[in-house]
């Protein structure tokens, strides 16, 4: 297991480096720079600005410099939010995004696994059909449709919850964004759980467990559930990526001060260090989630520990 983790970490480094270089090159290829726009700058000022931010160096050197600083945890200065470093912006935005994303992931797992389990034990009956139909519908509900819709119904219509915004310590501001963000993932997890359990319940070892005279509840809990959750575990990586992406929309719809909004602003304003920082950070997070998924595999199925 330790060896596996070590190998995974080793392959994570070139992946991250690839992300950084790719994004860096892409940003530099872009016509126009961060100091275009507002007002025309004279050549001297522009050269001075470029020099100050290291934009006049050859591309290779810029990347090397950037990676060097990155290792020390320094994402550089933001070009648009001039008084802030990217690290400071991340420190402000990330907790908001992680809170929303993390809570949505937990809710999606709880709803999805519960629904999938409920459907699997009633396989073939109307409850199964209903839950699975709902799950398919949920996976097809984009957050940019559900988000505004929820606001319309629960905030504007019924007035139960606030329309938008963020107040630390106010859970009511979290409800709508978290629920809207979690629903498609809950649907996907429900489908995976249902399919996994249906398969597991037909396996030979489950028949052996039944032959022992175990109650169906015990058969599921002790013998069928763990193998059934392997596909759910492998969905964690893509789910993490999807949640981070969905958070961008959610933060826009609900006007939350998260990292996703900084990213969109940064991208629209060619704030290279900010965009690069967010992409790198998110790539790291997704790799981390895939590592967690590997650990969960090992727990779910000891055969995977051997590899």
């Amino acid at each position: 297991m330790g060896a596996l983790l070590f190998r995974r970490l080793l392959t994570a480094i070139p992946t991250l480096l690839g992300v950084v270089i790719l994004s860096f090159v892409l940003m530099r290829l872009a016509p126009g720079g961060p100091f275009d726009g507002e007002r025309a700058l004279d050549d001297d000022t522009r050269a001075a600005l470029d020099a100050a931010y290291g934009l006049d160096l050859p591309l290779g050197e810029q990347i090397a410099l950037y990676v060097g600083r990155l290792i020390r945890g320094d994402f550089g200065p933001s070009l648009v939010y001039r008084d802030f470093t990217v690290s400071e912006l991340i420190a402000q935005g990330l907790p908001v995004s992680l809170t929303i994303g993390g809570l949505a992931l937990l809710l999606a797992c709880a709803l999805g696994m519960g629904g999938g389990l409920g459907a699997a034990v009633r396989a073939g009956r109307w409850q199964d059909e209903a839950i699975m139909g709902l799950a398919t519908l949920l996976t097809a509900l984009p957050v940019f449709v559900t988000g505004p819709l929820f606001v319309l119904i629960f905030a504007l219509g019924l007035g139960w919850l606030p329309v938008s915004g963020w107040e630390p310590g106010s859970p009511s501001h979290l409800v709508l964004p978290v629920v809207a963000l979690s629903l498609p993932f809950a649907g996907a997890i429900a489908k995976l759980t249902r399919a996994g359990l249906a398969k597991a319940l037909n396996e030979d070892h489950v028949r052996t467990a039944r032959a022992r005279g175990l109650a169906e509840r015990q058969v599921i809990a002790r013998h069928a559930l763990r193998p059934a959750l392997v596909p759910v575990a492998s969905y964690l990586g893509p789910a993490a990526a999807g949640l981070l992406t969905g958070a961008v929309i959610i933060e826009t719809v609900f006007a939350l001060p998260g990292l996703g909004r900084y990213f969109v602003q940064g991208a629209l304003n060619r704030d290279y260090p900010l965009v690069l920082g967010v992409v790198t950070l998110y790539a790291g997070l997704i790799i981390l989630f895939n590592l967690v998924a590997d650990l969960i595999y090992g727990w779910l199925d000891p055969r995977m520990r051997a590899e």
Partner: protein
Amino acid sequence: MTASRISLGIVAIIALAALFVPPFLPWTHSAIDWDAVRAPLFSTGHLFGTDSVGRDLLARTLVGTRVTLAVALAAALVALVIGTAWGAIAGWIGGRTDEIMMRIVDGLYALPFMFVVILLMVVFGRNIVLVFIGIGAVEWLTMARVVRGQVIALKERPFVTAAEAAGAPANRILTGHILPNVAGVALAYLLLTVPQVVMVESFLSFLGLGVQEPLTSLGILVKEGADDMDIQPHALLIPGGVLVLIIVCLTIAGERLRDRLSQ
């Protein structure tokens, strides 16, 4: 089987309507009817009403659907071509080549790919061709994995060894035995990729990074509807409903086909 036929039928009807109905409507999607700003549902001349600047919502929805579907189909085809080629080559050659090619796919999977697409949009301008090339170029990963798995499984099947014994050259084995047997699964994943791309395209358009005015797409319409929803909710509900319907139907059809083939 019937569920997938009904689903495909619904998508076909929506697609045909989006293609052929707009020329027969009294209003184009960008024409402004100054006399009917925010017309309600079912008003004369505007079956779906009009938006906040007086543009016909029926025409806009149909044209938006057309654009969304066209982008999605094109991007899914890009994904199909790249993914099938990549996966088939990796699986067919095998060994080190396969390992390296699939490590690249693994690495790309770890990319926060939506952010990369956004990056592409920002860097190369908000161009509709780029939208689908960009999306297709990242959506091919799943296709590559699936096709590779299929090719490797098929390569081990005795009928491929029998074909070798029958003197069939490698290219004939690939085109005569392997690819035809991969086609069904590839089609299922093509059906599943289209709704993925519909989602991504709408996502980008919603953020203002995808399709640009005067062209419209379902994502743009949802965004406009969301901005105006406290006054006329149907401006959000109609394009949102069409979007969800397309995604649901294609997902059902794709999943049914995939499950049928994997039995």
